[in-house]
């Protein structure tokens, strides 16, 4: 028993569950919060809205005999930033509608990016008071598909920023005001919402779409127009974003429902730069949202997740299929398919050569059992019978390396480096330059290791990167509808089959013959049928 097993046993001695007292404390804290926000706030004086640090800055400025026009806010935790302070008779500037029209016109000149195209985005996030241990300024790179359905951070797969939202944009309402109502309705589908509810919901939904998805130019333009038609939206000129770029912002002033929200555009070409949120403290430490801003530094079309090289070639059929598979696996993960313990026994019914075979194996394939001449024979890899056993994972990395539960050494995360690494294992095939070893190993892993969940998605994306891969619908020897990934190899594994609706592993093709996974279930031990 190693330290990891011991720690697992330690945890097993504590029951899973939340204590009633913890829940009471949480509910009480939530209740306190609700009372902090009045439903209909009394009109507050401008200076009260600005908050203490600004108030001092303005007071100091007035004391020095300066007219409050433009001044640099000097809240110590915030980067220097030009902030327009409205004098009592403001000089007329750009209206929100005019800014919206300009942004929409600029958006229409943008590129059309096909759905499923991977996009690499680098952002910088500044937080005035970051959580303990986090830097105030954090630069990150991440990948997602243009329409925001899938996201990828090295090794971590997930849904995109709002995969459900984008799909609902298919039939846009015909005018900006209707679009605002439509977007608000997404957040408040059932009942009547207040005007403030609707404004905040429309603004923040548009903010999210603009910041994360690469939308068709016409949709982008419509979103900007809709922004201009939110009644309370204002324009804030002469600002810089956290990357120091000159910007102009749509501002939704603070309400009882939200902080001050800003969408910052480039001051010269009206392209999207950043989003920011801040709420002046009203004296309660719990109610203030210190200034936070996320700016997009670069956006690059790339060939796939993990790649940073610019590549605007549209996704191949294999890549689009893998993206469908990814969505299906993510959806299944939510249904609760977990990663089993490495020692879990798994029963498999395999079909090959017109017959079927029952195989019991531990999840990590370190021990296997099957019937030989009517007798159940169990063999561990470490014992002398191992040489005579047909292992499900005959070549490839150990389960420790594949299992996402943190044992090392680890495989590369990104699909292309992973493909290169897996190709270094020898499966006995000949087209090594064409990644035949990697394909053979991936077939082994899918066939022989228990579901390692979303981590296996990287294997799928690796398969889509194999040169010459094609995808076709087939009916397999068991009569099931499958998708076959075919590889142009002369030996070894030349095809991998996935169920055409669930995208789960269904079998593989070797030497022209199919080996099919007909049934798979966790069982108590060797010889036990589900």
């Amino acid at each position, binding site marked *: 028993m*190693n*330290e*990891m097993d*011991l*720690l*697992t046993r*330690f945890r097993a001695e*504590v*029951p899973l*569950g939340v204590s009633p007292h*913890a829940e009471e*404390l*949480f509910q009480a*804290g*939530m*209740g306190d*919060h*609700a*009372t902090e926000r009045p*439903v209909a706030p009394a009109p507050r004086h401008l200076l009260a809205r600005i908050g203490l640090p600004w108030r001092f800055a303005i007071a100091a400025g007035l004391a020095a005999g300066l007219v409050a026009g433009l001044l640099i806010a000097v809240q110590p935790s915030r980067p220097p930033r030009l902030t327009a302070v409205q004098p009592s008779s403001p000089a007329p500037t750009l209206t929100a509608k005019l800014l919206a029209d300009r942004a929409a016109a600029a958006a229409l000149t943008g590129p059309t990016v096909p759905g499923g195209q991977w996009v690499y985005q680098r952002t910088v996030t500044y*937080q005035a008071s970051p*959580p303990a241990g986090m830097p105030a300024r954090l630069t990150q790179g991440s990948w*997602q598909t243009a329409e925001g359905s899938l*996201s990828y951070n*090295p*090794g*971590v797969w*997930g*849904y995109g*920023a*709002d995969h*459900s939202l984008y799909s609902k944009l298919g039939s846009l309402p015909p005018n900006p005001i209707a679009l605002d109502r439509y977007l608000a309705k997404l957040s*408040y*589908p*059932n*009942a*009547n*919402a*207040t005007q403030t509810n609707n404004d905040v919901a429309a603004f923040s939904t548009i903010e*999210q779409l603009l910041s*994360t998805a690469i939308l068709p130019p016409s949709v982008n333009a419509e979103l900007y127009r809709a922004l201009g038609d939110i009644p309370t939206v204002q324009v804030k000129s002469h600002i810089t974003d956290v990357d120091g770029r000159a910007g102009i912002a749509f501002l939704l002033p603070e309400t009882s*429902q*939200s*902080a001050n929200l800003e969408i910052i555009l480039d001051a010269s070409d009206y392209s999207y730069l950043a989003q920011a*949120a801040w709420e002046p403290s009203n004296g309660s430490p*719990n109610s203030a949202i210190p200034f936070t801003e*996320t700016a997009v530094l670069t956006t690059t079309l790339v060939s796939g997740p993990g790649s940073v090289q610019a590549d605007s070639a549209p996704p191949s059929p294999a890549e689009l299929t893998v993206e469908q598979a990814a969505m299906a696996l993510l959806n299944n993960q*939510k249904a609760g398919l977990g990663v089993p313990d490495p020692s879990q026994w798994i029963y498999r019914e395999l079909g090959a050569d017109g017959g079927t075979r029952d195989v019991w194996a531990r999840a*990590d*394939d370190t021990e296997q059992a099957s019937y030989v001449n009517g007798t159940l024979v169990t063999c561990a890899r470490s014992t002398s019978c191992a040489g005579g056993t047909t292992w499900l*994972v*005959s*070549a*490839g*990395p*150990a389960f420790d390396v594949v299992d*996402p*539960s*943190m044992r*090392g050494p680890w495989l590369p995360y990104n699909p292309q480096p992973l493909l290169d690494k897996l190709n270094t294992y020898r499966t006995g095939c000949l087209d090594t330059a064409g990644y035949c070893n990697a394909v053979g190993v991936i077939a082994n892993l899918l066939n022989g290791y228990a579901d390692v969940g979303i981590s296996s998605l990287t294997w799928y994306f690796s398969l889509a990167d194999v040169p010459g891969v094609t995808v076709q619908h087939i009916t397999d020897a068991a009569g099931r509808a499958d998708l076959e990934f075919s590889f142009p190899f002369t030996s070894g594994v030349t095809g991998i089959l996935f169920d055409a609706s669930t995208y789960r592993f269904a079998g593989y093709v070797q030497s022209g013959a199919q080996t099919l996974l007909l049934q798979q279930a966790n069982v108590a031990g060797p010889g036990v049928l589900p």
Partner: protein
Amino acid sequence: MTPQGLAHAVPDADADDATVIRLSRHEPEQFTELFRRHAPHIQRYVVRRLGTDAADDIVAETFLLAFRQRDRYDLARADARPWLYGIATNLIGRHRRAEIRLYRALARTGADPVTEPFTDRVDDRVSADHASRQLAAALARLSAELRDTMLLAAWSDLSYEQIAVALGVPTGTVRSRLSRARSKLRQTMGDVDPSALAEEPPL
């Protein structure tokens, strides 16, 4: 507490965490869904590290802190657990000496103070074996950052990339911390690593 006239969008039971958080920005009540989903696991993690007495406050405070910071949550992260475990781990850090006392007590006496309240549920409990006591002693000696990383790995069900998010460090740092933590634990316990599957067994 519910303001009159506000509409309430009810998140789908299968809406991801980011969707729940997004809705909660307009309707604070929605945030209780996040508590319902994740509090049981967070509680088990905190109880395992600090015992039942301290855990209730820390679990509630974790979710209340998260609630107050929800406008800053990166909605691109569908799964909120790294965020929540990160906050809980920070809060646990304020009780470092209490945590170390618990490990030392287990190491010294073989009785686990953390699980004592549950002993009636585990009738056949025996005092911890030699290896467990050695492990507890080794945990008490780990630096805070190695212990945080190791225990998130063992007790949170997060992947190492998610642990990196929780701790706000690069994934490479998580890997190297884990490897250092494990070798330190093994130095105490004796290396009992089971033979790993050979990388290239005969075909």
